[in-house]
């Protein structure tokens, strides 16, 4: 419970972050910015975890732990993703997402 700040404020911030992330994921061309958008989405979820934990179950730690797991997953995902990007760059000489359409019909 944080004095003077209602839960809605946090939720509004996280929602805005989430949709910024979605928006970035859909409209950006550069894979690195897409990856950054994914991180934004994950972090908005993290905020929700922490806020709900803090406001609804202040004496428990599940939310915190989940947030930490998400951070860890996000970090490893970023590592793998960037390795993939480097390989793609070697192959296509750019990292535009439109060029990665080998898996169509």
């Amino acid at each position, binding site marked *: 419970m944080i004095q003077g700040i209602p839960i809605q404020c946090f939720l509004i911030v996280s929602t805005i972050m989430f949709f910024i992330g*979605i928006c970035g994921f859909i409209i950006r061309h550069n894979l690195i910015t897409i990856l950054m958008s994914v991180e934004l989405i994950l972090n908005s979820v993290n905020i929700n975890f922490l806020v709900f934990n803090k406001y609804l179950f202040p004496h428990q730690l599940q939310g915190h732990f989940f947030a930490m797991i998400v951070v860890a997953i996000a970090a490893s995902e970023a590592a793998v993703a960037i390795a993939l990007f480097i390989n793609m760059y070697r192959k296509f000489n750019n990292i535009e997402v439109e060029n990665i359409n*080998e898996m*169509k019909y």
Partner: protein
Amino acid sequence: MIDYTYTVWIPLIPLFMFLILGLLGMKMKGSLAGIIGSSGLFITTVLSYITAYLYFFKTGEVDGTYQTITAFNTEWLNFTDTLRIHMGVMLDPISVMMLVVVSTVSLMIHIYSLGYMKGEKGFQRFYAFLSFFTFSMLGLVIATNIFQMYIGFELVGISSYILIGFYYEKPPAVAASKKAFIVTRFADLGFLIGILIISFYTKTFDFDKLISSDGSIFSGMNTASFMGVSAITWALLLIFMGCAGKSAMFPFHIWLPDAMEGPTPVSALIHAATMVVAGVYLVARMFIVFHFQVPGALIVVAYIGAFTSLIAAIVACTQFDIKRILAYSTLSQIGYMMLALGVSGYGGEEGVGYMASMFHLFTHAMFKALLFLIAGSVIHAVHTNDLREMGNLRKYMPVTFITFVVALLAISGIPPFSGFWSKDEILAAALEHNKLIFYSSVFVAGLTAFYMSRLFFSVFFGKKPHYEHKPQESPLTMTIPLMFLAAVSIFAGFIPFSRFVTTDGKAFETTLNYMIAVPSVLIALIGIGIAYFLYFKESNVPDKISSSLGIFYKTALNKFYFDEMWLFVTKKIIFNLISNPIAWFDRHIVDGAMNGVAWVIEKSSYKIKGLQSGQLQQYAFVFISGSVILVLCFIYWLN
């Protein structure tokens, strides 16, 4: 009582030989494959002889009547309570006799082929299918029910197809094998329908119930009728159609002469001695049903047999291919067997036709196999089938020559050779029941003696053509079967057949009727005499006679144009009026509907496949809009 269960091995050993030679044959040398096949068949032959001995002399006869023994019967297919198909071994006089015939002839031909087929490509394949054929034929002979018989018919049909087409690189062989298969298959269709009609009314396939009952199971079939003819008549006539196809009776006789494109041992085994008598055997097997239920069908059998035997004998006088002459001779002799069955009565002396038919089947199998093997031996020596290119071979091939003399006298019906005794019984039976058939068969007996002597004198005497290689006597593997079969042909006539094979299983005595025997021998001698006069020395008298006969000779030379008639019926009438419209319907309506469905699906899938663009962001967009719509649904509708 002796346990006859071992008889299942009689057909099974050739089957195993087929599997062994078929699967491993290519890995072994040809001669080894031949020896394996022959020794397997030797075991089968020994088992058949043991069975025949035990059956005829030890246990078969109870109170003076030969019993029908079901040695083995197992359920093979169980569809419903009434529709069950069994496989088994049934022993009665005719099946035991056939076991002996089939295994003996088959063994002789296995041995003969060791020499005749030596060095041929596909030697192992040849032996594998010979074994397969023997298996099928034995399975047919011992059938306990009519469906097993049908399976046997089909199996011998397919093995005959394979063996006629053994030289599958030669177009005539391929055409002949196709022709044989299609004609016999078409006739078997009638057989199948006949079986279905019979079993529909009687609820059984078993010969046991069909032939030993008092006929009450057929009562339903006598009342039911179709197109004014009772169901049982239809059934039996359709079954006879199957027999006519297999036994090459008119009008299905056209396939047999063409089947001579196969290797000569195959002609001897399948198209002379064993498979072609399957039809006769089936009529004999169903004889009681024919006789007591539909005597009219038997008259049809008799007339078709007599007619076939007459036209085949006439055609045989004009042909030049030695194997074709023998093929027409086979047709003619099988016609004899059929007509003997057709004129036969039931019980004791009345059943002499039935006995004579089986007797003739036995003796004919031996001397006709012998004749074909001799023809093979001659062809082996001079490398041609054409009568006009042979002559004066007696000095080069003494064994072949002497065995041919035996076979000639046997088939012409000169006493004491085997053909005389069986033919005499047939003529006796014919005289008793139908004068017309009797006179035609006496005439055929004369023709038989004539065309066989014509063949004999042209091959072994007559002109002295120039041979590129000096003809030599065949190797021992080929001459031993010749000598064996010749010995059987001499002595088989003395077997008292009426003691063993009769309609009701009871023995009766036959006496030689001189009123029949003397004229038939005389007419045979006249036939031989005419042939001697025409063909012993090279002369142009035969050509003069044939040109003076003009149109009649030409018709006979062209086999009475039966092939052309069949072609006219099939190509002009059936193909144009039935097959072509059906083909059009199939191509345009049935296939059209299917193609239309396929076309619609193909076009729509081209449209749909654009959705899978490979663009990650499109997927994400669709996914997210979907989730948003779902969320909105949950929030606003489902509450």
